[in-house]
């Protein structure tokens, strides 16, 4: 490359003196031909700017992106901003002084950002840019190289995904409400009110568990949020810190773990409110958890629920929905362990759940064991 100590100049002005500056003009010509082959076949748009932010070179992709040819841009003899970035999408003029790319006249290599450009024909398109300074031998910044990609498709795809997730959230919530309504209509007058109340609170627990998933686009859920939401008496209320002591680090949970754990905590809380420590004003519950590394590289969640200061505990005579869910289903679903101990001074439940990789089938390679 030429060792110019001058600010970068536009190509027609620069190429002639450069070619005659050095004895190895043939070599220079060969190098230029190779660089042109690279630049003009690149799918990313490349702009070379001088210290006044005038464009002195653009490759073929840049010409296609903007609708302007290099000779036309050179003839305009103005900042590139005034050619491709002069108007906000809402129609207001976009002065150079407000331009992030111009202001970024980058001190650091590879400054990135997103902007909306105006095509020659007037339409707007979203771009992602990467800008890096060009320095002379004395490290003075004499120009900028800007790499630009059209990200219209990516933006549209992200928008479609947002719409789908909103629709999914809406559908799931509506379906739960519909199931609740069908149950209410079906069992009207045939089921005692207590059973209906239990059913409704379980539906609410299921709905609450899904709320936590909605917050992170169904990809994962915060462990602490799952615990806090499950133990709050109403969806909007906070956990009652006079009754609950929560202690443990946050972690990301797979959506399935989040839902089943949320339901399990709901059952423990319901049982405590009916028979256990939450059935009297003095009673307390300590929920504490820790994460341990397993040999296979996964993390294991160890969570304990301990009731204190409640009435004397008597072992239930039959295994209900809650204990079946916690002691049998939850370990089977996650290859974990669960035990409920009806100690005289308070129910204790200990859960061990290996935390699987986040993601669903199709996103990850199968982590089961193929049978063949």
């Amino acid at each position: 490359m030429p060792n110019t100590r001058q600010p970068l100049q536009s190509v027609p002005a620069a190429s002639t003196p450069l070619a005659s500056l050095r004895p190895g003009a043939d070599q220079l010509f060969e190098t230029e031909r190779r660089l042109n082959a690279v630049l003009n076949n690149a799918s990313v748009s490349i702009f070379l700017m001088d210290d006044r932010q005038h464009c002195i070179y653009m490759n073929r992709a840049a010409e296609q992106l903007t609708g302007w040819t290099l000779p036309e841009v050179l003839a305009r003899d103005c900042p590139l901003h005034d050619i491709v970035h002069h108007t906000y999408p809402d129609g207001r003029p976009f002065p150079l002084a407000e331009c992030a790319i111009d202001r970024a006249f980058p001190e650091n290599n590879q400054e990135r950002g997103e902007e909306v450009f105006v095509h020659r024909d007037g339409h707007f398109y979203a771009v992602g840019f990467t800008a890096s300074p060009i320095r002379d031998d004395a490290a003075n910044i004499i120009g900028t190289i800007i790499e630009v990609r059209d990200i219209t498709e990516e933006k549209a795809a992200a928008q479609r995904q947002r719409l789908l997730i909103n629709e999914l959230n809406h559908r799931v919530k509506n379906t739960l409400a519909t199931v609740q309504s069908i149950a209410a209509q079906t069992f009207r007058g045939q089921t005692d009110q207590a059973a209906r109340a239990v059913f409704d609170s379980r539906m609410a627990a299921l709905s609450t568990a899904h709320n936590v998933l909605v917050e992170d686009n169904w990809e994962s859920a915060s462990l602490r949020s799952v615990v806090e939401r499950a133990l709050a008496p109403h969806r909007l209320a906070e956990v009652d810190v006079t009754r609950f002591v929560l202690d443990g680090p946050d972690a990301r949970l797979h959506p399935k773990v989040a839902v089943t754990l949320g339901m399990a905590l709901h059952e423990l809380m319901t049982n405590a409110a009916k028979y256990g420590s939450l059935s009297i004003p003095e009673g307390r519950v300590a929920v504490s958890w820790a994460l341990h590394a397993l040999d296979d590289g996964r993390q294991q969640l160890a969570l304990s629920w301990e009731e204190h200061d409640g009435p004397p505990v008597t072992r239930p005579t039959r295994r209900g929905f809650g204990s079946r869910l916690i002691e049998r289903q939850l370990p089977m679903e996650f290859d974990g362990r669960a035990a409920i101990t009806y100690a005289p001074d308070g129910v204790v439940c200990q859960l061990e759940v290996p935390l699987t990789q986040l993601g669903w089938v199709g996103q990850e390679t199968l982590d089961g064991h193929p049978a063949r």
Partner: protein
Amino acid sequence: MNLLEGRRVLLVEDESLVAMMAEDMLLDLGCEVIVAMRLDKAVDYVHAETFDLAVLDVNLGDALSYPVANLLRERCTPFLFATGYGARGLEETYRSVPVLQKPYQAALMAHLLNQLLAGGAPTWGGSGPEPATCACHRSTEAPSADGSFQADLAR
């Protein structure tokens, strides 16, 4: 017709709450139920034990239950798929396996399982690579999704 009394049924279903309900339905039909909620456990069961029937949820969250289906086929154990997606959600090779639409309904499940017992193991359709053929050839008249009974009411 209830051929299900006392039959050993493998239930593969990955969601805790759904598995509880499906297990109860099978118990109410008089079946002995072994529940697997993960692909590896289901495969272990099929290797270690024998079953008269199996009900396989297709999507196990982090895996699909096809490996279990292939093993059952090798052992001539009749099975059906349970899925919320219908037969179209199945890979080509498994399209002729009876499909029980989710949510589970006890009467439909009973009907399909009875039909499976009466007819033997399901046939395999599609143009993909055929899994190992059933060695016992105990029935030539296998039920298929195109039979008189339409499990998928949406079609």
